[in-house]
């Protein structure tokens, strides 16, 4: 990774004083993850360029492997080459004084806007060139970007996510370094270390002055804090205290609220059906992160609540959610799969499958039908699934596309009804269909729900 900083300030070699690095020498600095080299490709009174060359030790990358689906991620890895949070750490360690605005020899230059030009050799931009511009232009930079093909032998593979970037501005050096420190990892959307509370302090220290007024402040905070919602809220509130008077922008949250409220309506509808069935022992099949379980746990009618999911990750999140609830420790969650019959599913009065069936391929769906209706046989089964017709309501969703990439199908109302009737007939359940969510006169409700009640005897 190569970062260059040039100036045509007179005399340009003052850059050496500001950076505390002698233009005549090449210096190396040991960092926890490799070596940073600083040297000057040019150093004349008219023009001076300092270069930070970061040599990342590949063994430092091993730790990252766990987070990736690609087993060889720690070996076949762009980190030694691309600008990233490693670059930010190197800036903070190698140009500490410059970043903090300290300079004994040229103290007057610290706050002085200087004509500066920054070059980054391979800057990964998740969000493309537009995002790069939207991040730097509001801060007064002229942005020059050059993109490259992923591989010139295969032009059909398209462009690489890395850009050769030149940023030009007239600003104090310490501000430019702070912008780079914050925005490089934001563009990369990745951190090489664990992100915790102390990241908020770093963000305040390096971005407190300029970030509050930045139009993309939410995105910056969100990405900087690695999409951890709690941290993001904490950081935004700290930013906004420092920026009194400005109206809060809640557009994003409202979108989120709308989504939450459909999910909430769905869970409430399922909850009410389970309660009305008189069930005491209830089972949430495909419980995911345990949202429905949390509702069920709070209801005294449900003497026994259990949740099953196939994903160990989802289950551990469900366990964490339930730990915080007063009656949460009574809920049993376990790993299992609807593609198999399972003796542990027997003996419940009711089972819910909320937004589950659409994730099953046809053979697995058939196995699921038998596992639930033939073998587990709870007296009541409540199933919800998207209503494909309603998708036309959402402009953002291309026609014919599914709501979630893992959906194997989405049923229209007649399809769902036909399926539910067939299952009911086959296994001896009476079926009632109900809409969930705001109903469109033509398209129906966003979610469709079927309530199956076992007939007295089988047949």
């Amino acid at each position, binding site marked *: *990774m*190569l970062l260059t900083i040039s100036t045509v300030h007179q005399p340009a070699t003052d850059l050496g004083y500001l950076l505390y690095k002698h233009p*005549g*020498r*090449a210096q190396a600095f040991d960092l926890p993850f490799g070596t940073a080299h600083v*040297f000057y*490709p*040019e*150093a004349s009174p008219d023009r001076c*360029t300092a*270069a930070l*060359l970061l040599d990342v030790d*590949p*063994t430092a990358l091993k730790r990252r492997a766990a987070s990736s689906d*690609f087993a*060889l*991620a720690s*070996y*076949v*890895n*762009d980190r*030694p*080459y*691309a600008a990233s949070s490693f670059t930010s750490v190197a800036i903070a360690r190698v140009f500490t004084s410059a970043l903090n605005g300290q300079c004994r020899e040229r103290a007057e230059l610290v706050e002085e806007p200087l004509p500066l030009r920054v*070059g980054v*050799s*391979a800057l990964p931009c998740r969000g493309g060139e537009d995002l790069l511009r939207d991040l730097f232009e509001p801060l007064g930079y002229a942005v020059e970007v050059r993109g*490259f*093909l*992923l*591989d010139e*032998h*295969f032009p*059909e*593979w*398209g462009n*690489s*996510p*890395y850009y*050769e970037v030149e940023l030009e501005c007239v600003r104090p050096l310490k501000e430019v370094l702070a912008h780079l420190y914050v925005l490089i990892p934001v563009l990369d959307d990745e951190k090489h270390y664990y992100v915790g509370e102390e990241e908020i302090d770093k963000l305040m220290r390096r971005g407190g002055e300029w970030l509050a007024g930045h139009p993309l402040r939410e995105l910056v905070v969100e990405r900087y804090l690695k999409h951890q919602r709690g941290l993001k809220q904490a950081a935004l509130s700290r930013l906004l205290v420092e920026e009194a008077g400005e109206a809060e922008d809640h557009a994003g949250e409202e979108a989120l609220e709308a989504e939450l409220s459909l999910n909430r309506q769905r869970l409430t509808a399922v909850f009410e059906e389970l309660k009305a069935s008189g069930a005491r022992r209830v089972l949430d099949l495909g419980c995911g992160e345990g949202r429905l379980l949390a509702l069920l746990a709070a209801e005294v009618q449900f003497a026994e609540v259990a949740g099953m999911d*196939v*994903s*160990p990750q989802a289950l551990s999140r469900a366990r964490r959610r339930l730990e915080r609830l007063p009656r949460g420790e009574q809920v049993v969650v376990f*790993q*299992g*799969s609807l593609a*198999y*019959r*399972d003796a*542990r599913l027997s003996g419940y009065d009711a089972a819910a499958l909320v937004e589950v069936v659409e*994730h099953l*391929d*046809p*053979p697995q769906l058939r*196995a699921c039908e*038998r596992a639930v209706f*033939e*073998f587990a046989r709870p007296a009541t089964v409540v199933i919800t699934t998207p209503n494909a017709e309603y998708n036309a309501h959402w402009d953002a969703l291309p026609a014919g596309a599914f709501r979630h990439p*893992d959906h194997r199908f989405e049923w229209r109302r007649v399809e769902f009804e036909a399926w539910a009737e067939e299952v009911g007939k086959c296994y001896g359940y009476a079926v009632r269909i109900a809409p969930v969510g705001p109903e469109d006169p033509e398209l129906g409700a966003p979610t469709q729900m079927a309530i199956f009640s076992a007939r007295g005897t089988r*047949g």
Partner: protein
Amino acid sequence: MADEKIRLSIPDLSLVVLIGVSSSGKSTFAREHFLPTEVLSADFFRALVADDENSLEATDDAFAALHFVAARRLARGLLTVVDATNVQPEARKPLVELAKHYHAQPVAIVFDLPQALCEERAAVRTDRDLPPHVIPRQYRQLRRSLKGLKREGFRRIFALRSPTDVARVETVREKLWPDRREEGGPFDIIGDVHGCCAELEALLDQLGYRIAGEKVEPPPGRKAVFVGDLVDRGPNAPGVLALVMRMVESGSALCVPGNHDARLVRALQGRKVQRTPGLAETLTQLDDETAEFKKKIETFLGGLVSHYVLDGGALVVAHAGMKEEMAGRASGAVRAFALYGDVTGEEDEFGLPVRRDWAAEYRGRARVVYGHTPVAQPEWVNNAINIDTGCVFGGALTALRYPELELVSIPAKAQYSEPVRPLAAQQTRDDVLDLADVAGGFDSSSAKGRRVETRLMGRVFVHAERAAAALEVMSRFAVDHRWLVYLPPTMAPPQTSTRSDLLEHPDEVLAYYRRYGVRELVCEEKQMGSRAVLIVCRDPATAQRRFGGEDGSAGICYTRTGRRFFADAGLEAGILDHMRQAFERSELWSALATDWAILDAEVMPWSAKAQQLLEDQYAAVGAAARMSLAASVSALEQAAARGVDVGELLSRCRGRAESVAHYAAAYRPYCWPVHSLKDLKVAPFHLLATEGQVHVNQTHAWHLETLDKLCAAEPELLCAIDRRRVVLDDMDSNSEVVRWWEELTASGSEGLVAKPLDFVCTNGRGLVQPALKCRGRAYLRLIYGPEYTERIDLLRHRNLKGKQALALREFALGVEGLERFVAGQPLHRVHECVFGVLALESAPVDPRF
């Protein structure tokens, strides 16, 4: 007289309850007549739970533990003796219940010795200090108990009244009646005859039995086994009975009773039975027979044993079926199950008893052959087969030849009786897998994991944690489990090369196999694409019959983790269609006597499957590296021109840039755009299985030569694997293969795979690696990173043990799954192996191997 023995005949599977006051000699008796491990003594269990065998306050815990151990032993079919006073009915009650639960015989041995004698013995005992009132109280309880033992449920009661009696006892183990494990067959198992004498004679004739007057001559060594229901509804029950009785008497047949036979016995014994239409006809037919013949029938049918366990335990014959936990045991419940099956007590819409489908639940290893409920066509369900094809209802009389497992049928000459309900259509193949049948960790009985029995390696343990990881993949992404009969094993590389610039070299491969005593290898060029398992069926009907899919497809192509290989169904169908034609044209269908085949292959190009990976990782890393290193080199050159001392860094950056260029050159040959079928190549290297055969008994030379024929028939799509034979003690042949590897890897090939000539290769100590891969220096940049050659010495330390062990276990599981599939075993038995491979694949091993 004193020398005369008292014989206590004790059934093989009994719960023997010793009953007697303290110091009546129970423990001494138990020591003399039973194995130490057969005897569960209350004193011993008191000591186990309380460190004191006299601790009376520990009695409850001691008995809880004793009952637990007794239950486990009985479940395993082991005789168990309970050595405690057992003088109170409430102490005996749980033991009788335990015996009943496990279909074991409750046997009581009562030590009814004079009270004075026991008191005398107690007085001299040093190990115990009994208060004086204890023995009299126990004695009173014992006396009160004696009469009620039979009512309590003890099937055999032996009372010993004096020390002489005790000394004269000789215990004899009595084999259980159903136990005929020593009879190995071969057998001809014959379904419900129901008085269809003509059909029975025709069937016996067809099976090679010569009926000459009174004598029936079986084919040499063979024996007939009747599954019962010889009588009722059909035209000639007396004829059938006479024939079967003659065969059983002369030792050429065995017979188990059916429910109709049992009812006839009761009628003949003059007991009140419901005279159902079938029975009435039979009794009418018997009216003309002599009283002697009727008496003979009564004795014969009355003496039939509920069911038989044959052939070392591998075969069970019972009229209505047999649960695993009941097989070989004798109790009222076992007999009822054998006669009537798993009845619920309810009636269906035809007024017939509702029977649970016990076979759907059956998970036993023994094959169970049964009848009782007429079916249109016999079909194996979970190792069980119903061979009652409803002859009397106008169906057929069917026999199963064992161990050949061939069905032989004679159609009914008439419909003698109107079926109450239509003949059941084919039973649905039980294709819903039970999680507890395939993976450990999902119920308490296998909390740690599951042991899968394999032919090649014995038990392979699959850890519960691994199974948890596999479950998600198996449930969310895998293809229909009925197609998923095989997953390929992982492959280990050789020991790290000692050469300065290489990590892998054929020398170490050759050395490995030489060390393990292998004589000959087949080395195959390693194709760089994506591993695929292809199942090719001749037509959709074959696919449905053999694999059970009902979606009309005639094959499948899936990845090494069981996912569908092609997102584009048309592409998959196209490949399968071309392969099917190749099988036709090469005449391999007929040469192999099959209409389906499972192949292991590599599908090229790599980019067909790995496009996303190539773009997101491989090409992206190359692009970032090129940009960054080019910029670095040019900045350093400027600095060097100014006289700054950056020479070392500059040359290092130039070297790195060169490595990156090699890296991109390493993946490019494996990429080309796929617009249609014409752009794909399939290189099959194993012909794993066809009907009746798992080809692991063939050499790799056979596999490649057979597949050559296939490839020649479809050269557009299929490409034959280039290979070299290596004779390990011929040095020329060794250096020839090294040269070949050098050429291959220099020209952009991944490298080679070396396999022992024999598919399954063992030496004295066990399995030898079935294959080792030896990858080229250039290719390894895709694994170890673009610049691995710069720091190769840091990478030499490779611990391959784990990978090699994994490769063997996955290989054993893979072969086991195929063998079970080809043998027609139930789906859960096959899936258990496949699930195991996927679970083992989730083990944390270095992904670079």
